[in-house]
C-alpha cells in the first residue's frame, strides 16, 4: 500500500497518496481547469506544469474561481 500524506486543499485537510501529481489531484476533484486558478503554497501554478508537480506532506493548495460580487 502507498504511503498516505496530509495536505490542505482550500483550507481543509485531505489525505492523499504520497507523490500524487497535482494534475491527478485536480482531475480527481473534477475541477474545470479552464475556469480556475491554482495556488501551491501561495505560489501560482502554471496550469501547463500541473503534471510536473509531485505533492508532498503539508502542501497547501488553493483552487479559486470567480463569483459575482464587487
Amino acid at each position, binding site marked *: 500500500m502507498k504511503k498516505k500524506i496530509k495536505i490542505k486543499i482550500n483550507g481543509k485537510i485531505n489525505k492523499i497518496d504520497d507523490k500524487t501529481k497535482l494534475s491527478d489531484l485536480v482531475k480527481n476533484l473534477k475541477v474545470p481547469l479552464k*475556469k480556475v486558478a491554482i*495556488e501551491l503554497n501561495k505560489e501560482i501554478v502554471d496550469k501547463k506544469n500541473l503534471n510536473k508537480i509531485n505533492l508532498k506532506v503539508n502542501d497547501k493548495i*488553493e483552487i479559486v474561481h470567480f463569483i*459575482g*460580487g*464587487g
Partner: protein
Amino acid sequence: MTECAKAIKISGADIVTVAVRRVNITNRKKPLLMDYIDPKKITYLPNTAGCFNSNEALRTLRLAREIGGWKLVKLEVLGDKKNLFPEMIETLKSTEILTKEGFKVMVYCNDDPLMAKRLENAGASAIMPLAAPIGSGLGILNKINIQIIRNQTKLPLIIDAGLGQASDATIAMELGCDGVLVNTAIAKAKKPFKMAEAFKNAVIAGRQSFLSGRIEKKLMGSASSPKKGII
C-alpha cells in the same frame, strides 16, 4: 444567480465585477458564474473587494489573471471594517506594483483630487471615487470634488459605491463621469429589476444632459416668453 444575470441584462451594464473565491470541491455540481454570465458578452472585472492590505489585493488579482487572462482589474483596498473607506496609501502602493506587472488598474478611491492625481501618475487606467461609504445609499456627498477630479483628468471616471437611487446616477453623469458602479442600490431595492431599468435610464438621461450643455444658474428670474406683442 439567474436573477443576478437578469438584472445585469436589464440594466444594460457593460462590465460586471467578480470576486475570487475558493471552489467548492466537495460539491462540484454547483453552477459556476461563467455558466450564467458569458464573459464573451459582458466584461468580467476581477476585483479585490474584501481585501484590507496590498498583499491580499495583489494575490487576488494575480490569481484572477491566471483564471481568465484578464488584465483589466479593479483594485479596492479597504482600511476600516466599519466605514469601509479605502486605505489610500496601500491602494497607491498596489497601483504602482500592478501597473508594472502589466495590469490595467481601475482604482477605487476616496473623492480626493490630490490622491486621484497621484493614482493617475502611478499609471491607473480609471479613477473610481466613492460617492459615499459602500452600501450606504447616501448618493454623491461631495459634488465639487468629483467635478474637480473630472476637470483634471482625461482618464475614465466612474463613481463607485454609495449610490442609493437612480437620480444619483444621473447626477454622476451630469458631473461628467463616464459611468457608475452599482450593486446594493439595485440588489437590495424592493424591486431589483425595476431599479436596474431605472438606473439604465438615469445613466442615459444624465449623459445626454451633460452633453447638452446646461443653462447658467442665475439668482433672479428671467421670463421665458417674449415680451413683444404683450397686450
